[in-house]
């Protein structure tokens, strides 16, 4: 998910340019600060809605969602969540967001139990059969964070233009 703002215009007066650049500099700081808030919102939303640890290695999806910003002078952008990194470190990010209406219905999953915990083992001849009524409810953390972020940025732009 990313948000981007670019300043465009045709300026000639030096004072006007100096004033605009001071405003633009402040705006960029606020833009990045707001991006960090949206990132925090997404993390907290995930923590509140994801059930349990996401895989055997103990990795949590919320630890894999990065925040980045790019300041290119007249253009500033923020990015939340690097898809390549997520695909490598937390490939279940899509399932958490979109849900699964029928995950592995009736399928045999190889592995065994260690205490109460089931350990997946692809080579095992023993295993469990997933019940057909198991569902993965969607969390839609991306859409919800985008909704929150859009409102935050609209507010920031309103404040900046009515100053």
């Amino acid at each position: 998910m990313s948000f981007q703002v670019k300043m465009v215009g045709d300026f000639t007066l030096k004072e006007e340019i100096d004033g605009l650049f001071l405003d633009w500099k402040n705006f960029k700081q606020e833009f990045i600060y707001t991006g960090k808030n949206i990132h925090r919102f997404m993390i907290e939303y995930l923590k509140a809605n994801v059930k349990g640890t996401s895989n055997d290695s103990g990795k949590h999806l919320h630890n894999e969602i990065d925040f980045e910003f790019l300041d290119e002078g007249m253009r500033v952008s923020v990015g939340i969540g690097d898809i390549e990194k997520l695909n490598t470190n937390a490939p279940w990010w899509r399932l958490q967001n979109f849900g699964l209406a029928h995950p592995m219905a009736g399928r045999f999953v190889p592995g065994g139990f260690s205490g109460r915990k089931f350990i997946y083992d692809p080579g095992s001849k023993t295993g469990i059969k997933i019940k057909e009524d198991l569902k993965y409810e969607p969390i839609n953390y991306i859409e919800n964070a985008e909704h929150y972020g859009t409102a935050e940025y609209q507010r920031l732009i309103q404040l900046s233009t009515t100053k």
Partner: protein
Amino acid sequence: MAYRTTRNIETSIKDFLTTQINANFTGVNVYRSFGEVTGNNLPAVTVRSGNQNHGRVEVGSFSTRREVIMLIDIFGTSEGNLLDLKDFIVSQIKGSCPYNEYTVTNGVSSSVTTGRITCNTISDTLVNLGTNKSDLDKVDRHRALISVTVSNGKMEA
């Protein structure tokens, strides 16, 4: 018992889509809950609400106006069926629909239209679960998600 705003918005949009879809498609089921969709009731559409923003209507006032994100999941029977349903729903939802206030008395629901729900932003995504479609159950093979931000335009004191 009278429904509050969130359920009124959810149910109004669900009822509106049910009517529109039934008039144009055959055999499409519309549900409120993701959990109701199974392989036996495809194609299906679910309508849920996500988080809400309550913006102040003016400086110095405590009154707010809410903006709700509606999440519409579409489960098609084929890629073509999915794309047709998705585009149809987008075309219907992008305008406005009636805002109904619902009351349930002794298990019987009644409603009265008190305004309009308008769509502010809309986006649709074809759901890619990162798995081969042949490995997925037929329910999850052809899916799309439409996220719409809507407002009923009402000021809440």
